[in-house]
């Protein structure tokens, strides 16, 4: 019956409770800094930029005292996808990548590898590793509650413009609170339907219609039970005097320290530098310089 223990799947991120500079950062500043570094990763498409980014990301791992194995654990499931994508890129007729001139560097029958394709493969692999490690880092140094408070704090200035900051944060808190509850609910539904003779699990890739039909007696009751629960929750919240974010006080007050401002400034400077330096030219200059030796 261990296949029915859904509760053990209902984990989101793995918070690693060690104290470190990154753990102690104000969540608002951490999220902003994270977004800046992610932006730098998303828009960097050269070899040199990605080498710098990889080094930066691993420096951050060291700073946050999360073990390297833990930081890299998300990379492993991505490897088959990456391999598949690389093979796919090589087998496809060479793409032009925005009209840029590409040189053929390897050919075998109709299979052609241009330098553009090679760069695309290497850069997207590096980018994926950087992003996976960064997100693992964020969720392993920040609890989900801290993340919700952080998002609320960041959106608070926009509250006057009608952005529901408090409501959004409360929504996330409710969602996190109810994931285990609904997992148990789902477990109960699955067991009930199996007791009635239903069959679950996937029927194999080629019988997706069957798999889909097996999902219906699971998903429909799950949604209905969830909606019913949300009505009860709304009633319970009102019964306890909840009327929205206005005038509410909080047990946890976020206070930024000088170190937080410093970290954010560093992230901003890093992002601006990564987006403005012409790495293609710099890379060629570096290669020429290294070529002298």
């Amino acid at each position: 019956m261990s296949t029915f223990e859904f509760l053990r799947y209902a984990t989101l991120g793995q918070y690693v409770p060690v104290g470190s500079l990154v753990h102690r950062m104000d969540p608002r500043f951490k999220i902003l800094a994270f977004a800046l570094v992610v932006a730098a990763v998303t828009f960097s498409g050269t070899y040199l930029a990605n080498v710098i980014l990889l080094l930066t990301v691993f420096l951050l791992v060291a700073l946050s005292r999360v073990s390297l194995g833990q930081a890299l654990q998300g990379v492993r499931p991505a490897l088959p996808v990456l391999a598949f994508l690389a093979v796919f890129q090589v087998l496809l007729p060479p793409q032009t990548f925005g009209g840029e001139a590409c040189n053929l560097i390897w050919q075998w029958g109709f299979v052609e590898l241009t330098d553009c394709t090679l760069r695309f493969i290497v850069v997207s692999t590096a980018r994926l590793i950087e992003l996976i490690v960064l997100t693992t880092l964020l969720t392993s140094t920040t609890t989900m509650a801290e993340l919700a408070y952080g998002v609320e704090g960041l959106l608070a200035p926009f509250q006057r413009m009608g952005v529901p900051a408090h409501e959004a944060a409360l929504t996330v808190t409710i969602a996190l609170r109810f994931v285990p509850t609904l997992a148990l609910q789902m477990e109960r539904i699955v067991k009930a339907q199996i007791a009635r003779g239903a069959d679950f699990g996937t029927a194999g890739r080629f019988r997706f219609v069957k798999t889909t039909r097996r999902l219906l007696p699971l998903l429909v009751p799950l949604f209905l039970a969830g909606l019913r629960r949300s009505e009860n929750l709304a009633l319970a919240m009102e019964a306890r005097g909840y009327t929205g974010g206005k005038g509410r006080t909080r047990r946890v007050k976020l206070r930024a320290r000088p170190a937080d401002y410093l970290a954010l400034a560093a992230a901003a400077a890093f992002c601006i530098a990564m987006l403005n330096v012409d790495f293609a030219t710099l890379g060629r200059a570096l290669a020429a310089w290294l070529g002298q030796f």
Partner: protein
Amino acid sequence: MEMTRKANTSTLVRRIAVTGILVAITVLLGTLPVGGFIPFPTGVNATTLHIPAIIGGILEGWPVGWLIGLCFGLFSFLRATSPLFKDPLVAIIPRMFIGVTAYLAYRGLKRVNELLAVGVSAAVGTATNTGLVLGIAVLRGYMDISLAATVAATHGIPEIIVAVVITVAVVAAWKQIARRSGGSSV
């Protein structure tokens, strides 16, 4: 009276509660071994994770659909292991529109026939997800247009069918919309 099961609570509080629960369902479908993904012969899985955003948009309006979609996007970005969805532009932006377009389709057709409106709305919401994800994927250079069109046909259409069936069943049961066939409401 169309929403007989609604307790007499304020719109704001009910919206918060419904959004929270539907986001929880999204997360749950994404993490449990059963429910979120349907393996397809092509090797890529069809998803049901966008359905809570559609249902939220239909039942409680576009802000709810928008927020559920945003949370779905963030969740899929944080958990993604493929380069496509590890790109915040692909993972987050398209998802914010699922519930919004679903809501608009529902509002537009509600007067004609409510059940039809729900079905069309689910189809529109799913098409929004597929179309925007693939569209941005093409713009960002992850795939070319012909590949995107193939994926849209092989996955978009089955996903639309699944979404329509589930959404219609859930919304009809929840709102207790009478069906011509009668019988059980679930």
